[in-house]
């Protein structure tokens, strides 16, 4: 089965004045259907930059990206926006939700953007929120609920419109460990069940026990890949594992 998402020799060089930074270089990855991948590495290693390129939010400098048969370099801004709302589900670190829409409305927003809003999809949105434990917050505004609840709404939003790829940039950054684990577990389950390709950037290595593969980036390149769930389980808790996102790895 061909991967949903694949990159070859992907690179991004930021240029400003006479300086240039190779934020991402020579990254080749494949993520298949029903696969959930964690992107780890010290801060500044290029994780967000990579995610931005995968989401068509940032143009690459080298290499290619293909998602679900689409080649990014041929798309204009309008087509990229359409691609994002149809094929990609997002959760961000912050500012995930529209503050004047209720939980259910925030999830339905993704359906409305895709002209897929109707009674049955609306019921699905509600069911998804219930599954995420938000049955009492359906009509709450983001300002009335906790950060963890907001993150769970964002996760529901990132899945409701049947995207091929789900991208999450540190979705648990503002949650306590217990909350974070609950959220990531449900997230992983939903990606597995619905055969989507998921990539989650995370600082928190404890979240890795819910993913199928861990890709460690250092200085813009892939430094190490822990390929299988059993390897991840073996490594988890050891001091070696803790070093995956340690700053001293910066060369």
């Amino acid at each position, binding site marked *: 089965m061909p991967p949903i998402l694949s990159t070859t020799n992907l690179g991004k060089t930021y240029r400003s004045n006479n300086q240039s930074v190779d934020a991402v270089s020579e990254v080749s990855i494949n993520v298949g259907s029903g696969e959930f991948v964690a992107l780890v590495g010290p801060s500044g290693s290029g994780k967000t930059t990579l995610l931005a390129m995968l989401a068509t939010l940032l143009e690459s400098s080298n290499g290619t990206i293909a998602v679900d048969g689409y080649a990014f370099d041929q798309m204009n*801004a309008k087509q990229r926006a359409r691609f*994002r709302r149809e094929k990609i589900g997002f959760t961000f670190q912050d500012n995930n939700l*529209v503050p*004047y829409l209720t939980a259910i409305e925030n999830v339905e927003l993704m359906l409305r953007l895709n002209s897929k809003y109707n009674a049955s999809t609306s019921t699905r949105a509600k069911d998804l929120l219930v599954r995420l434990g938000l049955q009492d917050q359906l009509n709450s505004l983001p300002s009335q609920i906790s950060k963890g609840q907001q993150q769970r709404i964002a996760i529901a939003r990132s899945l409701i419109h049947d995207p091929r790829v789900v991208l999450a940039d540190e979705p648990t950054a503002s949650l306590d460990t217990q909350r974070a684990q609950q959220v990531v577990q449900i997230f992983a389950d939903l990606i597995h069940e619905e055969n989507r390709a998921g990539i989650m950037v995370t600082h928190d290595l404890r979240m890795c026990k819910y993913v199928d593969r861990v890709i460690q980036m250092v200085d813009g390149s892939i430094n190490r890949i822990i390929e299988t769930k059993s390897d991840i389980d073996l490594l988890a808790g050891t001091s070696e594992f803790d070093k995956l996102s340690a700053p001293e790895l910066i060369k």
Partner: protein
Amino acid sequence: MAIYLSFKEIWRNKTKYFLFSLVIALISVLVLFTAGLGEGLATNNKEYLEKLNADLLIFQKDVSFSTIESRLDFKKFKRSKRIDGLEDAGPIAFSNVKVITQNEEPIDVSFIGVEPFTPGAPDAINGNNLQTYPSKMVLIDENIANLLSISPGDILTIKSTQGTDDKLFDLTVTGITSGQRYFFRPSIFVTLPTWDRYRPKSDPNNYSTQPVLNVIAIKSNGKYDLNRLSTIISDTLDDIETADIVTSYESAPGYSEQQGTLNTIKGFTFLIGTLVIGGFFQIQILQKLPQIGMLKAIGAPNGLVSSAAISQIIMVSLFGVIIGSTVTFLLASSLPSNVPVYFTPSSVAITVVTLIFIGPLGGLLSIRMAHKVEPLTALDM
């Protein structure tokens, strides 16, 4: 979809948007009242001239079309009647007297001498038109009739200074005309002999049946265009010039200055409105930049974000203008009738449409800002 987003946002921030609508409403009230005052003052100034059933006025030459300064010999009127191309000519003589009331202060009125059934004499809407005989009849403006509850057949007493004494004269009301204000006073009309007899003057014995006039109103029979007719009149009569009705009232002392001042106030109020609305929505957008970036990142098209911003500005402005217009209407209908604030449908329509447009105009910059937000900002990059 754009309406959905902007409506939800307004609805969930009702208080904030309502308060801002009130600011727009206040600006609307101010602009509408300024426009109404301009209209009212203009009407008070020109109503009689504007309603004249005439095409041209003949003035004395070189008096800047001032009805007060213009002096025309009665003979000029007689000769003017024989000019080719005229349907009719009417003599007009202006003065001021006071009308005595039962309990209150006397009222200042324009005392206008005309020849019955000529272009200077307005028609009665109640009672009879002014006639040559009997003398001592008066046709009065409905503004006075309403104020003093006078009907045709009643007696109107005027006070006029003759030499050094104030004298009272009784006139019988023959009929009532529509509003005929002139120079900020309601008007009463008498025949020329009565006018010259009763108008204030320094020599009480100096009056005639053919007095010196101020202007002559000309009604064309359509044979020549008005320019041609003007030339013919100027060639026939010495020492005169003609003006159309609009030029005549715009030349009244202070008229243009007054209207200019009010238009400047109105213009500034529009400008302030534009800046206030622009500033408000700009602050709104600045606060919303992260949210707008997020919307674009999840695939909201740029057009949606911009049209949501526009429709929000339009909704808030529209709401404000509607409240403002309603308040203005309520205030205006409770104003005493002698306050010169009038609302004509056309001036109100123009003002309201302009008010509705200043919202989006003021908001242009904020819409541009919304348009320029990069979706990448959602990733904090």
